[in-house]
C-alpha cells in the first residue's frame, strides 16, 4: 500500500516540477517526415540556446497546427508558403510580405525561410534525362513519346496536370498511378516521367532528376516557420538561435535528411542532430543521445501519463456503470443473458483499429471521444461476464436463505448477492482495466494522446528507443493498475470470503 502511495506521490511531484520550470517554447510539427525533422531541428537549436522547449510531434494536418498556433498551445511550427497562402489565407500570393499581411491580424507571422521549397515537380531518371538532354519542363515538349505516370491527385487538381500541360503545351498523355508504385514503375523504365514532391526521400535513391519549372507554373512552397508574433520578444535567446536556420537547408540536404529517416530508419532526432552539429558545430543534446530513461521521463511524460490515465479511468468508469447492471440483468433473465453476452462478446472480436476506424465516421470526430467509446466497449465483456457468473455462482442455498429471511428483491441484491459476487466483479473490472491500459496505446492513432503517442511516433520514425519509451510506461502502468486492484480487493472484499 505504501509503495503505491509513493509511486503516485512521485507522479504528482513530477507533474508539479514540470509546471514549475518556467515557460517552455512549444514547437509543433505535422504528421509527415519532413515536418518531424524540421520541428526536431528547431527544437534542438532552441534547446542549445538554453531555452526549455517541448516538441509536440506529428500533431496532425495544417488545420490542426494552425488552430493550435492561434490558441497558443504551440508557439511555432514549420510550414510552406504556398500552403499558408492557399489553405489558411485563401490567396495565391505566396511571398513572405503577402503572407505576413494576412497573418498579422491573427497575431501570427511567417518567416525564417529555410532555403528550400517542397513543391510539386516532375522528375525523370537521371540517365534518361541525360540521354535526351532534358533538365527543364519545357524540354519535355519535343518528346511526345515520353510516358508520363502521374498520381491520381495530381491528374485531377486544377493546379496539377491540366494547367501544367496547357502552360508548357505538352503533347504527352498521362496515365494515373499510385504514387508509391510510380517509383517502382520509373526505375525499370516503364514510365519516363512522374510527379513528385521536390524533397521526396526517394529522389536520391532512384537517381531522379527534378525538372526545373522554368515557366514558374507551380506555386512557391518555400519552407518557413509560422509563429506567434510575440515569440521573438518572449523567447529572445531562442529566436536569435532560430534565425541562424534562415537559408541553411538546401533541397539536396532536405532530400538527404528525409532519406535518412524514411529509407535508413534513423530517428528524426538523430537526423536533426546530425544536421545541427554539422551545420552549427555544437553538439546538442539529442534525445536519443541522452540517457534512455531520461527519454522515458521526457518533457511529455506528465502530459502523456495524465492523458493515458484519463482515457483508462473514464472509459472504465463508464464500463462499470453500464456493465455491472448489464451483468445483473443477464444473471437474472435467461433471454437477456443470451443477447447480452453475445453482444459484448462480438464487440471483443472486432480488432481495435477497425473499431476506431468505424467509430470515427459514426461519431463524426477523431480524438478522445471515439477512443473513450472504443475502450468502453472493450471493457464491457470482462465486467459483464464476471458480474453475471459471479451472481450465478452463488450457492442456491444462500440465495434461498436470503429469500426465506424475507428480504425484498433489491435488498437481496444489495446486501447479499452483490457482496457475494463482489470478488468476481472486482476481478472482472481489474481485467478490463489492465486490458484498457494496453489498448489505450492504440488511441494515439486517432490523436487521443497517451503513451501510445510515443509508440505511434516511434513506429513512424522507426525509432525503437522511442517506441520502448512508450511501451514500457504502459506496461508499468498495467502492473500498477493490477497492484491497485489487489489492494482494492483487500479493502473491499469481506474477510469472510477470503479463506
Amino acid at each position, binding site marked *: 500500500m505504501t509503495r503505491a502511495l509513493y509511486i503516485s506521490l512521485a507522479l504528482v511531484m513530477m507533474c508539479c516540477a514540470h509546471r514549475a520550470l518556467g515557460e517552455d517554447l512549444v514547437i509543433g510539427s505535422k504528421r509527415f517526415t519532413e515536418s518531424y525533422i524540421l520541428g526536431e531541428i528547431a527544437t534542438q537549436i532552441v534547446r542549445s540556446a538554453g531555452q526549455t522547449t517541448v516538441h509536440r510531434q506529428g500533431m496532425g494536418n495544417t488545420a490542426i497546427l494552425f488552430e493550435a498556433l492561434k490558441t497558443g498551445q504551440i508557439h511555432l511550427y514549420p510550414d510552406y508558403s504556398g500552403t499558408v497562402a492557399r489553405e489558411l489565407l485563401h490567396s495565391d500570393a505566396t511571398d513572405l510580405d503577402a503572407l505576413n499581411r494576412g497573418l498579422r491580424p491573427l497575431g501570427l507571422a511567417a518567416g525564417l525561410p529555410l532555403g528550400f521549397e517542397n513543391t510539386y515537380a516532375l522528375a525523370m531518371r537521371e540517365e534518361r534525362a541525360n540521354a535526351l538532354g532534358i533538365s527543364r519542363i519545357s524540354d519535355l515538349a519535343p518528346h511526345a513519346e515520353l510516358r508520363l505516370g502521374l498520381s491520381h491527385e495530381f491528374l485531377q487538381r486544377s493546379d496539377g496536370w491540366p494547367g501544367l500541360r496547357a502552360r508548357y503545351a505538352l503533347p504527352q498523355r498521362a496515365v494515373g498511378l499510385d504514387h508509391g508504385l510510380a517509383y517502382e514503375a520509373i526505375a525499370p523504365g516503364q514510365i519516363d516521367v512522374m510527379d513528385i514532391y521536390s524533397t521526396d526521400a526517394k529522389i536520391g535513391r532512384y537517381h531522379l532528376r527534378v525538372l526545373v519549372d522554368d515557366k514558374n507554373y507551380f506555386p512557391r512552397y518555400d519552407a518557413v516557420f509560422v509563429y506567434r508574433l510575440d515569440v521573438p520578444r518572449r523567447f529572445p535567446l531562442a529566436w536569435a538561435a532560430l534565425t541562424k536556420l534562415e537559408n541553411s537547408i538546401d533541397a539536396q540536404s532536405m532530400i538527404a535528411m528525409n532519406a535518412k529517416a524514411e529509407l535508413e530508419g534513423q530517428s528524426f532526432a538523430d537526423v536533426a542532430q546530425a544536421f545541427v552539429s554539422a551545420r552549427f558545430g555544437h553538439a546538442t543534446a539529442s534525445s536519443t543521445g541522452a540517457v534512455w530513461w531520461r527519454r522515458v521521463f521526457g518533457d511529455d511524460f506528465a502530459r502523456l501519463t495524465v492523458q493515458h490515465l484519463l482515457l483508462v479511468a473514464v472509459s472504465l468508469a463508464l464500463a462499470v456503470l453500464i456493465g455491472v447492471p448489464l451483468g445483473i440483468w443477464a444473471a437474472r433473465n435467461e433471454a437477456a443473458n443470451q443477447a447480452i453476452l453475445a453482444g459484448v462478446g462480438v464487440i471483443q472480436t472486432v480488432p481495435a483499429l477497425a473499431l476506431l476506424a468505424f467509430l470515427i465516421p459514426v461519431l463524426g470526430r477523431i480524438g478522445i471521444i471515439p477512443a473513450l467509446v472504443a475502450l468502453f466497449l472493450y471493457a464491457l465483456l470482462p465486467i459483464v461476464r464476471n458480474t453475471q457468473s459471479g451472481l450465478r455462482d452463488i450457492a442456491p*442455498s444462500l440465495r434461498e*436463505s436470503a*429469500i*426465506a*429471511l*424475507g428480504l425484498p428483491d433489491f*435488498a437481496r441484491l444489495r446486501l447479499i448477492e452483490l*457482496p457475494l459476487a463482489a470478488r468476481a466483479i472486482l476481478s472482472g473490472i481489474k481485467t478490463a482495466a489492465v486490458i484498457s491500459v494496453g489498448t489505450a496505446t492504440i488511441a494515439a492513432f486517432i490523436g487521443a494522446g497517451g503513451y501510445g503517442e510515443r509508440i505511434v511516433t516511434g513506429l513512424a520514425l522507426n525509432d525503437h528507443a522511442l517506441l520502448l519509451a512508450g511501451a514500457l510506461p504502459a506496461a508499468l502502468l498495467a502492473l500498477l493498475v493490477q497492484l491497485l486492484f489487489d489492494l482494492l480487493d483487500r479493502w473491499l472484499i469481506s*474477510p*469472510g470470503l477470503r479463506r
Partner: protein
Amino acid sequence: MIEIEALSKSIQGKCVLAPITLRFAPHRTTVIIGPSGCGKTTLLRLILGLSVPDRGRVSLQGEQLAATNAQRLRSQVGYVVQDGGLFPHLTARRNVELMAAYLRRPADQVHTRCAALAELVKLPLDRLERYPSQLSGGERQRVALMRALMLDPPVLLLDEPLAALDPLTRHALQTDLAQIFARLSKTVVLVTHDLHEAAYLGDEILLMRAGRVVQRGTLDDLLERPAEPFVTDFIRAQRADARLSATRSRLG
C-alpha cells in the same frame, strides 16, 4: 399455525408431492421423516413459497400464501437449512441482525435480543464477531438458529439442521434444540431422515414416502399401529442402521 390444502407438485414431469392436506398445530413440534426423495424438503419449500405448487394452498397464521404477501409472511417464519445457509461475507452477528437492521429496528434493542438469543442457543458471545468460515459446524447451526429466531417468528422450519454434524456435536445440539423448542413453544416443523432424532425432538412424527403421508402419530403409534408394512420396514431399517453404527463405533 400452518395449513396445507390439496398441495401437489411435480418437478420435470415427476410427481414429488401427491395432493396433500395437512395442519400443523400451534406450539407443537412436528418432525417429518422419510427416505430421500420422499418429498419432505419439497413440502418445506412449498410452505415458505420458495417453490410454487402445481395445485393447492398454503396458509400461514390464517393467511393464504401468495406472491403478493410471501415476503411479509416469510418474516413470520424462521428457516434453518442443513448447512446453516449463513452468508459468508457477514460476521455471525451481522447474519443474525441482518433482517432486524434492514427493518431499522433500534440498535440497542437488536443487540439485547442478539445477546439473549446467544444465551438461548448456548453460543459464546465472542463467536458473534467471527465469520461463518471461522466457526465450527455446530456453532454455525446455532448462529443459523439465532438468525431464524431474531424476529421472534411464530413458526420455525428446520430442514435437516443436524445432518451435516459429527455425532458428538449432533447429540449436544439435539439436546439443546429439544430444550429450546420446549421453552419457546413455537409451531415447529423439522425435517430429518433420522428416526432417533424424530422421536427425540418431535411431539409427533409424520412419515412420508413417495410424495404422500404414510402415517402421522407418535413413535409408539408408528411402532404399535403401523398404517402399512412400509412403516415397520422403515423403522426396522433405521434400527439396524443404528445398531450397526453403534457396533462400529465400539469396534473403532
